[in-house]
């Protein structure tokens, strides 16, 4: 879920089997089984009613092939596809890479870095709605905060951000990074802290310091976490709605829509819910392989969600 805060912890795979607890007296019997089933029923009911049903219904809504020929004949849809790819490819990768580097900075134990971390994580806790609207207002007129700062520094009028398609798209991506980089920094920070100190000491004796330590020790140890986080974030970001909806609002002229906002407008502003579902379903050819790859990596590596 891209619109929420989630988490990946890290644990070496060996610990997995050792900590797996023994079953209750070698397996459930009689009334215990009934109790266990009763305990799972609420979740299974929710899953059936609010995940399976809407999924099946959505698949049915988007099952008419003519919807897709309609979609592909819409030039705005093709723009949306390109935007979504740019948004995900640039947004996720830049965010992950910066988060990885910054997690090294936040390893410092000094008091001011720790206090900074507390503030730096704020975007993670804040509602996307309010911060993205605030960013929208920084950009939407030539009297927004960014233009005022620009004027104060250069003495000239700043650009009108949401009039230019590339700048509006860049604004979406930067806002997305602003909101989600702290969360992933925290994940990488936790993973870094889980690396035993003696590995670094051994590496130091072998002469690995500075950037060599980063490239040859830290990164290989975190490669699995990095890969899984990137996959997970890619999947969530493919369905990201609030960033583009509030920051650029599709401006100028619906040229910066992504799949989620395009589907939303088709379904609720223009009254074609089936077309909206079809637009989102057109992400499935990318989404399904990613999810399969992700679930498999999680199982193989023992990185835990």
């Amino acid at each position, binding site marked *: *879920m*891209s*619109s*929420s*805060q*989630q988490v990946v*912890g*890290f644990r070496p795979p060996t610990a997995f089997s050792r900590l797996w*607890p023994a*079953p*209750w007296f070698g397996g*459930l019997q009689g009334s*215990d*089984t009934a*109790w*266990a*089933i009763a*305990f*799972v029923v*609420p*979740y299974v009911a929710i899953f059936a*009613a609010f995940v399976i049903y809407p999924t099946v*219904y*959505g698949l049915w*809504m988007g099952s008419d092939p003519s919807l897709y020929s309609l979609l592909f004949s819409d030039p705005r849809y093709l723009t949306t596809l390109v935007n979504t790819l740019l948004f995900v490819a640039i947004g996720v990768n830049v965010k992950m890479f910066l988060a990885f580097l910054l997690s090294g900075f936040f390893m410092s134990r000094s008091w001011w870095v720790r206090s900074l971390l507390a*503030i*730096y*994580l*704020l975007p993670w*806790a*804040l*509602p996307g*709605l*309010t*911060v993205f*609207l*605030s*960013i929208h*207002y*920084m950009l939407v*007129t030539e*009297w*927004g*905060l960014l233009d005022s700062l620009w004027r*104060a520094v250069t003495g000239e009028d700043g650009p009108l951000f949401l009039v230019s398609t590339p700048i509006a798209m860049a604004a979406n991506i930067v806002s997305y990074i*602003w909101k989600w980089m702290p969360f992933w920094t*925290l994940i990488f920070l*936790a993973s870094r802290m*889980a690396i035993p100190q003696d590995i670094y000491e051994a590496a130091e004796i072998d002469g690995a310091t500075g950037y060599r330590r980063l490239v040859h020790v830290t990164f290989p140890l975190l490669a699995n976490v990095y890969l899984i986080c990137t996959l*997970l974030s890619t999947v969530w970001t493919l*369905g*990201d*709605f609030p960033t583009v909806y509030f920051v650029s609002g599709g401006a100028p002229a619906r040229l910066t829509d992504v799949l*989620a906002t395009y589907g939303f407008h088709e*379904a609720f502003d223009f009254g074609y*819910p089936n077309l909206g579902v079809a637009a989102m379903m057109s*992400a499935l050819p990318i989404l399904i392989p990613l*999810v399969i790859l*992700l679930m498999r990596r999680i199982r193989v590596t023992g990185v*835990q969600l």
Partner: protein
Amino acid sequence: MALTSGRRRVRRRRAVGRLPAVILGVGLLIWTLLPIYNMLLIALSDDGDEYTGAIWPDDWNWHSFQVVWTQDYWYLEHFWHQLGNSLYMSVATMLLTVLIGSLASFALGRMRLRNGWIVTDFALLTYVLPTAFLAIPFVHLMHVYGLTDSLWSVIAAEVTFATPYAILILHQYGKLIPMELDEAARIDGASPVQVYLRIYLPLMAPALVAVGVYALLLAWNEYLYQYLLISSPRNTTVAVAIDQFFDSDEAPWNYMMATAMVYSLPPIAIYFVLRRFMVAGLTMGGVK
């Protein structure tokens, strides 16, 4: 003499070595606070005066906060009621997520229900998928369930998206609690319900707090489902009310940002008070 100048040189070198870190730190601080500062800047400006190009508020005008407080603008006439709705919806989501998630993770992780991995896998799958993809069918769904324009339709959606994470994290954390405790209680004649209430829940408290805060913030901060599933002004939440300002031609952006500011305060407060649990929730089961 030579000694002190040498020491000074070392100190100066150390300060110079720290300079890039300080610059990075200041950059990060500005980067993080800029949108939040902008929210405050607009909220503090006079009516119709939001865009004077000021970088610093000329006079600290708390008028818009007063308007929000007294519901003195027609888009804000249900403000307190809507804030109550947001709170009700979030707290209900939190309680249901903790209850349903802990029951399921107890049955799956502690009682080891046969074929329970199917449920865990479905939870993982739900967790991984983007929520926006289910939004359009959800609107139809709530008509079928007769929950249109009801807060409970939103609660159902938020619980659906929060429980998978709850199950995964609780399952994970539960592995750290020795199974022998359950078995000892069983030998003493405790029923599964008693083991759940007296042993599982108390020992899982930190994880339950982490999961609860997660669900609370997920529901409070979410927008799309609140917007789609509720239509009447009295039943809606603050998140939807804020966005409704866009429908106005007057565009009282200072009121809108003041409302946004008030709406952002509870998550900020929760974050600063319960940060430790939230961060622990991220690393639970992983970093010991």
